[in-house]
């Protein structure tokens, strides 16, 4: 094939690919009361999967289409800014934002509000937004501290898997956790940040257990790293000896709690956050003035002893459910 023909072939292939791509793109809803745009730092992990489940479930009941944009990582703050701007251009009616960094998203959120979009924080407060539905991360940290004191009444050593560096939710949880432990005999002997991933948690926790073979407890900022920590403890045959304390009750976290490898889980209710965020957004869009626009969803402490009696309806999405991306 001559060079000219090859060039034309490649060019044609690119154009054909582009045309083909539009053919498989999701069609807009035929009839819809409006569109909800969702901007999240990531869709990895049970928290986001569950919150998206709640959003999609409630949006479907209300007759709204949903557009989900993920920045694919807490470090991709510039991507989240671009995605919020794209949602503004896309003229969504309601925007739900879980900011990777609230300082970064404040300005584009304010622009969105100025353009007439109802913007709410979902999962985390979002400065600049008209309201939010979230768990107070400081309260999560304080609840984790309650768990730590129950698990180690006489004090002990803790290794901290702090979650992503600089992310508001992980920083806030750890800050309040440490504050509530002041004056106790519980001491943090190691601390590492990482992306919220099970593999990262497993690797870091294994390192901690190598350095401190008699470590009393591992703190996982959420159940991605928490599950990793529990698996490391299980692999070292130390379930129950090295206690694992974490937040968010995903499928794997529940299984590990039943095994006794997670000893205290502060279960958030992300499904309820998603549902209530949609309800609040629609209420505001319909001209109602809700009495409370900063809604804090309570947490549920889960242990191996009470796991069967806790109402888990809003703690996670149905087994096997995945967001339609």
């Amino acid at each position, binding site marked *: 094939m001559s060079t000219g023909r*090859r*060039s034309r072939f490649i060019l044609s292939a*690119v154009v054909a690919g582009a045309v083909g*791509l539009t053919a498989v793109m999701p069609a807009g809803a035929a009839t819809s009361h409006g569109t909800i745009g969702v901007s999240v730092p990531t869709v990895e992990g049970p928290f986001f999967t569950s919150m998206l489940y709640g959003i999609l479930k409630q949006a479907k009941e209300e007759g709204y289409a949903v557009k*989900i944009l993920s920045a694919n990582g*807490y470090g991709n*703050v510039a991507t989240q800014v671009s995605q919020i701007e794209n949602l503004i251009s*896309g003229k969504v009616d309601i925007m739900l934002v879980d900011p990777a960094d609230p*300082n970064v998203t404040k300005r584009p959120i304010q622009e969105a509000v100025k353009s007439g979009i109802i913007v709410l924080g979902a999962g985390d407060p979002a400065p600049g937004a008209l309201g939010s539905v979230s768990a107070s991360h400081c309260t999560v940290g304080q609840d984790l501290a309650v768990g730590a004191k129950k698990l180690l009444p006489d004090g002990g050593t803790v290794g901290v898997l702090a979650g992503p560096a*600089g992310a508001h939710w992980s920083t806030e949880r750890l800050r309040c956790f440490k504050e509530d432990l002041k004056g106790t005999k519980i001491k943090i002997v190691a601390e590492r940040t990482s992306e919220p991933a099970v593999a990262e948690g497993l690797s870091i926790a294994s390192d901690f257990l190598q350095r401190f073979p008699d470590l009393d407890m591992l703190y996982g900022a959420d159940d991605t790293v928490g599950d990793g920590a529990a698996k490391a403890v299980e692999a070292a045959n130390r379930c129950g000896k090295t206690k694992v304390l974490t937040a968010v009750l995903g499928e794997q976290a529940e299984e590990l709690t039943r095994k006794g490898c997670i000893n205290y889980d502060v279960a958030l209710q992300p499904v309820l956050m998603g549902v209530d965020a949609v309800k609040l957004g629609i209420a505001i869009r319909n001209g109602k003035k809700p009495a409370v626009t900063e809604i804090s969803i309570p947490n549920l402490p889960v242990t191996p002893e009470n796991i069967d009696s806790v109402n888990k309806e809003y703690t996670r999405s149905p087994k096997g459910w995945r967001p339609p991306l």
Partner: protein
Amino acid sequence: MNNVRPTKAPVNEHNQQERAVAGPLGRLDLRQIGLPIVVIIMGLIFSFSSSNFMTASNLRNVGLQAAALACVSFGQTFVILTAGLDLSVGSTVALVSVASALGFTQYGWMAGVIFGFLAGFLVGLINGLVVTRMRVAPFIATLAMLSIASGAALNLSGGTPISGLPDSFTALAYATVLGVPAPVIVAVALLAVGYFVLQKSKFGRHIYAVGGNREAAHLCGISVARTEFMAYVVCALFTALGGFILTARVATGQPSLGESLALMSVAAVVLGGISLFGGRGNILGVAVGVVFVSVLANGLNLLGVSSYTQLMVIGVAMILAIAGDQYMSRDLRARGGA
């Protein structure tokens, strides 16, 4: 007079044969017109698929989102033209972001600007020295620098973003001049500088010569090592400008900023027609490559295509562009070109 159709493509000033077609518009290099045509077609497709694509506010967004990538890609062009590669551009952006934020918040505007450019300059200096003096392959040298710069950014910031930047700086990201966003103006100015340097200056000719044929360049009396060294320094300084733009946009010094820029800048450069083998291509093509990548991402976002699929699409586009580049390079060598 007869209209004689040429039987052999001419040799351009860089000693390379152009794959040209004769037609009503005269000789057109397929590599130069192919991507702009694709961009236009893509724009039309997105316009038909989304009523929000061809609006002033969306086009402004595309420009804003492309500006930092453009600066980094123009810098990457210098390195790739010498047959090198700079994988550290993403971490350089992060380091510049953190260094400038520390300067802004602790010592003021001037310090912020100086610290940022100094951080970029140091990265370029070290990359250049490692490649030219220590003779480490560019891929390895800049991969190592990726890690070093990233670690440095995390160390300087303590792993957390630095907020409190002056409003007068962060406002620049959204300032406009005659309706055109300031970052776009910066990127266009940098394109003009890059074009002038590469096409009209002695240094630019040396860049093409070194990338086209190192031995011949050396025999012609060109300092290959100095030319390569300067390419890495220029790349890092251009990248630093991209770092400033992104830092202003996110209004914080972020130790993980720009993570995807290495891949995206190489994609834009290669799509824009710069050969990975060096010595061939035009920085104006890189601008088109940046537009392609940015319009693609923006259009797919507006249409609700998942960001996972977007990554795949950009990867496929890169493969097609590089495959095309390799076919043409083999053909050139077969014909006895550069």
